[in-house]
């Protein structure tokens, strides 16, 4: 019965993809940015659904299982402040530039902003490398969910494969419009079912009072921060949600807005949505420490699904597992579509076929890349064995460290391509070094002090941007006029690389 409910849910998502395919206009702009027609509610749901992934449900509950309520402060309330602030300062401005100059990808913007193909290419490579762990979170999350909810009857690799195939089907059918619709539906599903999961498990555990009393008696350390979270760690974790400003899939969704003011609802409602999703995740993870003890390492990521199976078997388990699937797929689709858009526009079209590439060929290229990237990610998911939360933190840290690029591009006229090169190279070097240094050390902080590597990478990236820019020749006035209207005279298009 559980499997039937999940299968029914996946078919429903496929049906949404099929409907959106009927409205597909056949153009590259429609496939890649939904012809920039998305309204406020769908934008909120797609941005939020895209951002919340297996990290927020399986990863958060798994981390809270071992580290207690402090996980909410580390990632949820810090995101409630930082993410909408990033939307406010970056989103409408990038949307405006995207609409004016016809950008479809993040790389196009940065390449044009500093007039450098090399910056675009370096950024493409780094963004793809950072996105792979993020994709892995989703693919692994789908496998874990299906395997745990069926008590191992369905192996993880089958769950991962089924989810990849469904996402491939609706992304290639409907492009970004199909993705946005599916995301909206799935975001409503996982927010609603998350609340139901929370209520059902609490009720079947004897109520909130009984649950907290048991925790206070058996695992009191999980109800405070204590030694499980260090103050410096909380302070520097705040930098991680900056990553939202450099996610290629977020940038892509920003471009779909109908107008600048479409962002207003997403900015205001985002903190509330974060609380709605993370409160059940973190609380159920903490409760799970008392009810499902003994999960160690990456296995802790399964605590939420184990709690569902323990308290709500049958149809309800199927529905609740569908909620987890919804959260996972609503991110996976956008990430893969963003990657395929970048590959088509920034590599195939920019370096190979230029204007000879018809809309049909662009869409075909995008679809093939979606299939290819899923194949690679799926194979990686079979061999990588790391906690979902840890994979997420490493991926987000890299993206967050690239934030000085966006800040400089939008707000600093004196920034130059040399500064951009220096910043990207610094992030690539430090991120690689830290990942190799800390791969086998869960909870790594610098010298065990609580200082997260993201803080060092962010500071070094910003310093590299400033130093590289000030040590190189100032940008040409024509290019500045293009991005800072009113400061100079001409808005004539420039050739990329000019």
């Amino acid at each position, binding site marked *: 019965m559980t499997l039937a409910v999940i299968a029914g849910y996946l078919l429903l998502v496929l049906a949404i993809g099929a409907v959106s395919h009927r409205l597909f206009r056949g153009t590259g702009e429609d496939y890649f940015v939904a012809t920039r027609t998305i309204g406020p509610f769908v934008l909120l749901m797609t941005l939020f659904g895209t951002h919340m992934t297996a990290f927020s449900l399986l990863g958060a509950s798994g981390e809270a299982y071992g580290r207690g*309520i*402090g996980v*909410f*402060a580390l990632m*949820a*309330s*810090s995101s*409630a*402040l930082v993410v*909408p*602030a990033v939307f*406010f300062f970056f989103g*409408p*401005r990038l*949307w*405006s530039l995207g*609409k*004016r100059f016809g950008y479809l990808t993040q790389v196009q913007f940065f390449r044009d902003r500093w007039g450098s193909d090399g910056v675009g290419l370096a950024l493409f490579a780094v963004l793809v490398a950072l996105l792979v762990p993020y994709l892995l979170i989703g693919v692994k999350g789908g496998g874990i969910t299906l395997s745990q909810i069926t008590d191992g009857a369905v192996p993880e690799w089958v769950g991962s494969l089924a989810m990849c195939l469904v996402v491939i089907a609706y992304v290639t059918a409907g492009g970004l419009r199909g993705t946005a619709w599916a995301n909206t539906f799935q975001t409503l599903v996982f927010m609603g079912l998350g609340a139901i999961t929370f209520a059902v498990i609490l009720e079947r555990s004897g109520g*909130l*009072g009984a649950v*907290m009393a048991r925790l*206070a008696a058996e695992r*009191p350390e999980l*109800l*405070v*921060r*204590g030694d499980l979270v260090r*103050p410096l760690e*909380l*302070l520097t974790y*705040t930098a991680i949600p900056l990553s939202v400003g450099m996610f290629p899939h977020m940038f892509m969704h920003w471009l779909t807005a109908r*107008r*600048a*003011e479409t962002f*207003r609802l997403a*900015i*205001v*409602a*985002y*903190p*509330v949505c*974060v*609380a709605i999703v993370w*409160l059940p995740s*973190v*609380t159920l993870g903490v409760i799970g420490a008392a009810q499902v003890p003994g999960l160690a390492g990456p296995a802790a990521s399964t605590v939420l699904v184990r709690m569902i199976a323990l308290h709500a078997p049958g149809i309800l388990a199927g529905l609740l597992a569908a909620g987890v699937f919804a959260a996972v797929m609503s991110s996976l689709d956008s990430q893969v579509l963003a990657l395929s858009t970048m590959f088509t526009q920034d590599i195939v079209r920019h370096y190979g076929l230029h204007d000879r590439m018809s809309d049909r060929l662009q869409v075909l290229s995008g679809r093939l890349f979606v299939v290819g990237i899923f194949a690679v990610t799926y194979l990686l998911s079979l061999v990588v064995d790391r906690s979902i939360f840890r994979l997420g933190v490493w991926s987000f840290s890299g993206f967050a460290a690239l934030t000085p690029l966006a800040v400089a591009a939008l707000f600093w006229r004196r920034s130059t391509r040399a500064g951009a090169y220096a910043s990207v190279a610094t992030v690539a070097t430090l991120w690689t070094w830290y990942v190799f240094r800390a791969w086998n050390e869960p909870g790594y902080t610098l010298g065990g002090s609580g200082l997260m590597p993201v803080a060092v990478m962010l500071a070094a990236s910003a310093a590299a941007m400033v130093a590289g820019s000030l040590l190189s020749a100032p940008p040409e006035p024509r290019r500045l006029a293009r991005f800072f209207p009113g400061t100079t005279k001409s808005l004539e298009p420039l050739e990329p690389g000019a």
Partner: protein
Amino acid sequence: MKLRRRALYAALAALFLLHNDLPLWNDARLVLGLPVGLVYHLAFCAAAALVMAGLVAWAWPSRLDDDEGGRRR
């Protein structure tokens, strides 16, 4: 308008500092049935939503809407 904008940017900075709730670090009291450290950060989310509402109301980059030919304005 400029003053409101500066006040809202200051509120953002204040929230950043208030996120570090050191006095509640080892406080195990329950409030509304939940640990006080968790309730504080839920309230923090609500406060962040209020500041964001202020930002879109009084510090919105309206020039971007004007770029769109002033539609709906």
